[in-house]
């Protein structure tokens, strides 16, 4: 067939019905508007394209760069307020997850079970909070940056107490700094017990120091190495094995106090133990650091955060996340310059990025293959379904190999096509698109009457019983013409013709499963 694109847009809307063709076809969406929404958010929601068209691209960028200026959705605020473990500090989370026992007696099986359930609940609420925010927050750029920085400073949830700390880690060490100063973010992650446990620094001890005993006997290089390789300089950042050992010595004694002991006033368990520290003078990356205790760590973090090599590494990663799997050198250098000049001000670097020629190069539009996380969230957002139940989303992430908080290795999940495009992934994405479009995925189901009276916080976190949900929510297929509007009807001729020639009940599925929607 050989029909002009405009005709196709028209014919698609007529086929879909319910939309005034003259209105729908009259204004094809401005590709720049779609691009800025695709890259600064997890995809359009109903009406968002039209809103950004009316306020303009520049105002949208400014708005997203200042999340504090955007009123948050009251529904989301309410949902988050019900997740009562979300704002607990690490010590409370730890203590509340220990089985209760009296004296020297072993905890009873019931107490053990309750503790396991508690730990499970904490993790579940962290997952729920993250997915609700990603899908529903109006502060979309902030949510994108939470995902970016969490992966950059990844902590794996299935390692000991990290299973109840990952939520608090995100809340306390990541979220407050996602658009702030890199140095502050680095420090916050370095002080959080989730990171100290994950990369083992809590046990890192100067051999032969007065505090060296029991499990604290000697150096541990794990955190020191990843701090340079992943968090700051990058693997080719010019450090040596000797620098790894020196940084490990600088980091001796840096960790947290035993969790059954009283904490500082802020409830933080962070603690520097001078008795386990190596007080000798050191030469780190060519800088002399006098043996002086915790301030050595501050000096080392200063050196790392201010290194132009770090600026380059972070700039490359940001350019890859926001622009292209293989970002142009020119852009990376531009961002690196801004990073150095602004002393690692992330908001300033992003502002430069969003106004760069490379960001607006139309060759980069709709070119990034969505990660499973971006895909799942963008599907949910596009349907406009209110989300009450995030478990279908987390289970889909599991199936696609990207379960939340569960990247085992400290390099975090990648965001490139190489990493995520594979045959099984296509099969599963399209199946998810089809299930969501048919209205059979119970995202909006509200779970009622499942509260255990003694555990009120479990209300919104109970395991989902699919049968109960089916009874509660009507099956409501996604409206294809509404969806086409939401996505700006930005489909290729081939996609349009495939949609138009398919049964009406499958059209929304084809849009959510279209090649255009696989990318952003």
């Amino acid at each position, binding site marked *: 067939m050989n029909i002009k694109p405009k005709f196709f847009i028209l014919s698609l809307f007529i086929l879909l019905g319910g939309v005034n063709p003259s209105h729908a076809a009259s204004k094809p969406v401005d590709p720049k508007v779609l691009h800025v929404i695709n890259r600064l958010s997890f995809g359009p929601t109903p009406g968002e394209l039209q809103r950004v068209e009316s306020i303009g691209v520049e105002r949208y960028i400014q708005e997203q760069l200042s999340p504090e200026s955007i009123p948050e959705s009251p529904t989301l605020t309410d949902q988050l307020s019900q997740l009562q473990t979300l704002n607990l500090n690490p010590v409370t989370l730890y203590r509340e997850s220990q089985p209760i026992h009296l004296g020297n007696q072993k905890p009873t099986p019931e107490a053990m079970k309750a503790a396991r359930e508690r730990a499970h609940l904490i993790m579940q609420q962290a997952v729920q909070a993250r997915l609700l925010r990603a899908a529903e927050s109006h502060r979309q750029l902030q949510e994108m940056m939470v995902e970016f920085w969490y992966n950059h400073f990844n902590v794996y949830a299935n390692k000991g107490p990290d299973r109840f700390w990952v939520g608090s880690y995100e809340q306390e060490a990541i979220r407050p700094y996602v658009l702030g100063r890199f140095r502050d973010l680095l420090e916050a992650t370095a002080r959080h017990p989730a990171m100290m446990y994950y990369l083992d620094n809590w046990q*890192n001890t100067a051999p032969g120091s007065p505090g060296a005993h029991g499990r*604290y006997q000697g150096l541990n290089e794990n955190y020191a190495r990843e701090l340079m390789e992943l968090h700051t300089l990058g693997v080719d950042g010019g450090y040596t094995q000797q620098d790894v050992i020196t940084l490990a010595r600088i980091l001796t004694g840096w960790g947290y106090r035993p969790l059954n002991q009283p904490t500082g006033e802020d409830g933080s368990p962070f603690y520097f133990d001078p008795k386990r520290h190596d007080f000798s003078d050191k030469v780190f990356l060519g800088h002399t650091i006098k043996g002086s205790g915790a301030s050595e760590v501050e000096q080392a973090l200063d050196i790392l955060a201010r290194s132009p090599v770090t600026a380059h590494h972070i700039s490359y990663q940001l350019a890859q996340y926001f622009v292209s799997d293989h970002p142009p050198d020119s852009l990376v250098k531009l961002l690196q310059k801004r990073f150095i000049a602004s002393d690692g001000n992330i908001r300033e670097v992003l502002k430069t990025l969003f106004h760069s020629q490379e960001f607006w190069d139309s060759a980069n539009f709709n070119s990034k293959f969505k990660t499973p996380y971006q895909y799942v969230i963008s599907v949910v957002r596009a349907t406009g379904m209110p989300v009450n139940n995030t478990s279908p989303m987390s289970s889909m992430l599991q*199936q696609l190999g990207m379960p939340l908080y569960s990247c085992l290795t400290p*390099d975090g999940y990648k965001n490139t096509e190489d990493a995520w495009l594979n*045959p099984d992934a296509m099969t599963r994405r*399209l199946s998810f698109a089809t299930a969501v479009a048919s209205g059979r995925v119970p995202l909006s189901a509200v779970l009622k009457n499942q509260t255990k009276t003694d555990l009120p916080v479990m209300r919104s976190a109970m395991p989902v019983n699919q049968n109960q949900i089916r009874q509660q929510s009507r099956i409501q297929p996604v409206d294809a013409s509404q969806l086409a509007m939401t996505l700006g009807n930005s489909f290729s001729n081939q996609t349009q013709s495939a949609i138009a020639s398919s049964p009406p009940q499958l059209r929304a*599925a084809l849009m959510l499963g279209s*090649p255009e929607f696989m990318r952003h």
Partner: protein
Amino acid sequence: MHRRDFLLKGGIFTASALTAIGTHAYVARSANPRDDQKRLVVIFLRGAVDGLNIVVPYAENAYYQARPKIAIPQPGHQGGVLDLDGRFGLHPALAPLIPLWEQGTLAFVHAAGSPDPTRSHFDAQYYMESGTPGVKNTTDGWMNRLLSILAGRTPIQAVTVGETTPRILSGKISIANLASGRNADKPLPLDRPQVAEAFDKLYSGKDVLSTTYYEGRMARQALKSDLDEEAKMANNGAPLPYGFARDAQRLAKLMVKDPRIQLGFMDLGGWDTHVNQGGSTGQLARNLQQLGNGLVSLVQGLGSVYQNTAVVVMSEFGRTVNENGNGGTDHGHGNVMWILGSKVRGGKIYGEWPGLSANQLYQNRDLAITTDFRDVIATLLERHINLDAAKLNRIFPDYQLKNNLALI
């Protein structure tokens, strides 16, 4: 992009053709595999497993001096190693593998690894999977290059267990992934003909998404019928094992059922034991037990196909000879590689042992490497899969075989 050329060559690229051909026709027209098809399974232990506590040099005093807390005792002591050859002993958690050692189908190559000095997990894994140590711009993995050499291309010629394609299998030629875990075989909406037909139209181009889509469709058709049958059979048998062993068994059964599957890949994490590694028992022992059981499941599941299969177990680098202050070990260099297979000249430890005295260590801290991992793989490819030197050179470009091991 011209990956997946089997699709183009096979002329089954358009939606209508696929629909018309259907499963059986597709199966019939794909390669005509022989019963004696040679198979290769690679198991990658991500995180750098501590090989010195797997094949333990128990005759070396230096080993016990370096590891006061985590050393595995000599044979005959409580929790001691299982003697292999009078010098080395196997971690006791791997006892289920001893029958394979005694039958002579399990061998080890000690002090093996990648010559690149990196101690970064990610770089080291990349180098081992690309097969080009020290070269960062290799775009494909050596198993994918191997696929491009093997005859009889089918969409399930290589199967990886897991949700994503590992570096070692990525490249021009299509591969299939078998999701791991319990939900992997559940029906999906895309299995319904009406839904599939609609998406076939959407993805009928020659772009990378369309080709990947078709590979997914065809691999699922092929694997699904295999798995459906397997599931029916499984009901009569013993309960399925958990986790890794379960996945290993599924892969094995699939390889038995479907001779088109020539290469298999699995990976297993959790080896980065910087803290509380344990000795005869503990963290590493638990993981090794899981791995050992998985290998036994794999061998048992392969049944007579084991005759024609070689299995390699490898990891990106070894760990420090000295234990660290936290009952663990840090990133090191040389490691042990494991080889299983009916034709393997097993019951033997290959490779030159460099020793553990201070002056014998790599950079004064790690087990030195005396056998390049490529020598081990190349030997298997040469003698098991019958590749000639020119083909080996495509798999490991610019590499001259150094040690010709009489492994097989």
